[in-house]
Structures are given as structure tokens and as C-alpha cells.
């Protein structure tokens, strides 16, 4: 039986579906956050060389992974919206951007917090931190461009083109920054010991899953408000129970 995927790409069907899904994602994210933080900050043993400071990686690593991955997700949705002219994809892209930027910011912040006890400086020009900073700039560019164009359709399309150019550029930027870093013999974050202890691994994955679910829940919430805002003049919106009230 063929499933009509395009049915779910229409805001009219997606809006109630997202509404039903959000509580599940939000609740499981909250549970996993609690479990992950408990595992990471209480159960997991302290690191041989880094002591207790290393525990910030349970926040730092998942947020940096998500910040990078969400950029690709955003660019993917934006490209879909640009090529197939599907409204929902473009709305998804603009819903992903702030969450991605938030994770990039958290990754930078926690990286700085980690750097202070490790290297004695809040900021070191480590290749990964620098790339993360540039990634944050790319997110901000996307958001700023989208915000400064009044016509939503032009904004979607222009920002989509920027996101695609950005995602093509990300590997080049990452490579060049890494190269620059090795030339200048900068400090690089390295894990002590090649194998992580099992509890450490478990808490890391729990936190990663928690962040994922959080991202999905918040993006769905944001896309729902974008749908309401963009489609405010359509009939189905005015017939929604929450709008009638």
C-alpha cells in the first residue's frame, strides 16, 4: 500500500499531527535528561587526568554534535523548499535555525568552561571551537537574512540559497581551520585514554538522545507557531479550536 507522504507535507495535516507528537517528545526528553545528568554527574567515575571537570562533556559533546547536524537538517529542508516549492519544508528550515544556533552557543559556552581548568584560559583557538564559532556565525547569517526580508516567500528562498552555499562551504571551512590550527601548533582537545568507560559512554548517549528529543519537540512547537503566523488568513486556521477561543 502506498502511503501518500505529500499528505503530511501539507500544513493542514501536519499542524494537528505535530500537536499530538510534541508531548511525547517533550516527556521522553525530560526523562532522558534526568537520567543522563544523573548518570553523568553522579554515577560515572571521575576521569584519570581531568578529574571532575571533564563532566561538562556530557553537555558539550551532544550540543556540538547537534549544532552541526542541525545545520545539515536545516540546509536539507531549505533545499527541499527551494526545489519543490513546498511551504512546510521552508517553515521547518526556519524553525530549525534558532535551535541549531542555541546548541552552537551552548557548545561554545561549555567549551570555554572546560578550557579554563584545562588550559588556564577561557578561550583557546582550538580547531573545533573555532569551527563551532564559525558555525554559529553561519546560523546567525541565516536567521538575520530571513528576518530582514519582509516577503516570506522571498525570505525562504533567499535564506535557503544561503544555507546551501553555507553547507557546501562547511567542509572547506572545517578543513582550512584544522590546517591553520596544526600549522600554529595550537592546543587540541584530546580524550585521555582511547576507550571510554562504559558508564561514561552510557551517559553520553543518554544525553545525546535527550538533546535530540528536545530539539525535535522544540522545533515542532516552533513550526506550529510559524504555520499559525503564515497561514493566519486561511480558512482552516480560523476554524481551529484554539484560535476560536
Amino acid at each position, binding site marked *: 500500500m502506498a502511503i501518500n507522504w505529500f499528505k503530511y507535507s501539507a500544513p493542514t495535516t501536519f499542524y494537528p499531527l505535530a500537536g499530538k507528537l510534541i508531548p511525547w517528545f517533550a516527556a521522553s526528553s525530560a526523562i532522558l535528561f534526568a537520567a543522563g545528568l544523573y548518570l553523568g554527574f553522579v554515577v560515572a567515575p571521575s576521569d584519570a587526568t581531568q578529574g571532575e571537570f571533564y563532566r561538562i562533556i556530557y553537555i558539550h559533546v551532544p550540543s556540538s554534535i547537534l549544532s552541526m547536524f542541525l545545520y545539515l537538517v536545516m540546509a536539507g529542508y531549505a533545499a527541499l523548499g527551494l526545489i519543490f516549492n513546498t511551504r512546510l519544508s521552508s517553515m521547518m528550515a526556519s524553525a530549525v535555525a534558532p535551535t541549531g544556533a542555541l546548541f552552537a552557543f551552548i557548545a561554545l559556552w561549555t567549551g570555554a568552561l572546560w578550557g579554563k581548568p584545562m588550559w588556564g584560559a577561557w578561550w583557546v583557538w582550538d580547531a573545533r571551537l573555532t569551527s563551532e564559532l564559525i558555525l554559529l556565525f553561519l546560523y546567525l547569517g541565516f536567521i538575520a537574512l530571513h528576518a530582514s526580508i*519582509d*516577503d*516570506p516567500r522571498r525570505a525562504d528562498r533567499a535564506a535557503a540559497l544561503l544555507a546551501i552555499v553555507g553547507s557546501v562551504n562547511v567542509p572547506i571551512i572545517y578543513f582550512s581551520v584544522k590546517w591553520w590550527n596544526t600549522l600554529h601548533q595550537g592546543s587540541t582537545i584530546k580524550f585521555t585514554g582511547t576507550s571510554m568507560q562504559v558508564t561514561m559512554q552510557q551517559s553520553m548517549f543518554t544525553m545525546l538522545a535527550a538533546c535530540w528529543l528536545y530539539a525535535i519537540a522544540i522545533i515542532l512547537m516552533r513550526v506550529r507557531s510559524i504555520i499559525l503566523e503564515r497561514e*493566519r*488568513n486561511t480558512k482552516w486556521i480560523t476554524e481551529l479550536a484554539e484560535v476560536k477561543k
Partner: protein
Amino acid sequence: MLEVSNLACSRGDHRLFSGLNLELHPGQIMQILGANGSGKTSLLRTLCGFIQPDEGKIAWEGSDVRDLGEDYFAEMMYLGHLNAIKDELSALENLRISAGLSGLPLNEADAIAALRRMGLKGRERLPVKVLSQGQQRRVALARLLVIKARLWILDEPLTALDVNAVALIEGVLAEHLAGQGMVIFTTHQPLNVAGVRSLSLS
């Protein structure tokens, strides 16, 4: 032949027109009527392919203009509110560059002849910024004489023109129609050309 079927267009949240149909055959001229803000310019810009219509199709000689692309651009000419001329360049330079852009390099003698016909004798080599508004519009309209397009899309071509210039344009239009050309235009001034059909946007 230009054929528009079931065209709908909106700016922002505002629906300008919908279900619009029109047909323009060789030798025909059509005026788009409507109050300010009724979407005349948007319609013309949609016909040029600048704006993607919300619905509907625009076909030139039976094929969608989106698929034709440059082949369509080669057969049409658009004259907008803006003159598309450079202040720093002379009328002659402006005209020759416009012609070059359309892929039809123009020699100096032909360009001067076209400008003279537009009543710009003696001003061909002055920088356009010293010309009056009406004269600048004439420089822009000189493109009609040198670019060989079958479909003319003219948005308010008569702005800033004096009586003589309007008469001149009427003659140019009549000539174009006699040669199996097509014209679609908007204007708020009277224009005397035989056989004008009109389409009202309301």
C-alpha cells in the same frame, strides 16, 4: 501568441487577482485597466517571469514561458517604471549597451537615427543626467525602435512625455502592430491607437 490561463498572483498576504485569462494574437494590443494598487504592475512583471504566479500558466506560442526561458526573453521586451538607463553614460552609450544586452549589437549610425527619431537630436552624446525627465524617458523608449521583439510589455510608457512624444509613441505602436507585433500596456493617460482591447483588474 501569448496565452494566459487562470492566473493568480498575490503580494504578501494580499491576493491581487485570480482566475485571470487573456489571449494576445499577432497584431493585437491590450490595455490593462485598474485603480492604483490593483496589481497592474504585478501582472506585467508576472508576464515577464519576474514573479512566480500562485496558480495558472503563461504560454508563449503554446509552451510555458518558464520552460522557454531565454527563448521567450528573445521575443519580448519590457519597459518598466524605471528607465534602466545610466546617468553617467550618454544616450548613445545607453542605447548601444541595451541593444548589446539583447544580443543585437547596434552600430552608431543606427543608434543615432533611433535617438533622432525620438526627438533627441543634438543630445545623443550628452550624459543622460543633464537631460530632463521626459528626455530620459525618450532615451528609454528608443529601445522600442532598435530591439526586435515581437511582444512589448510596457508599464506606463507615457510617464513624463509631452504631447509630441505621445503622438510619436502612438505612431511607433501602430507600426509595430502593423508588422504583426503584440503589445500589452498600462497607462493613465489617453493613448490613441486603433483596436485597443482592454482588461480590467478589479
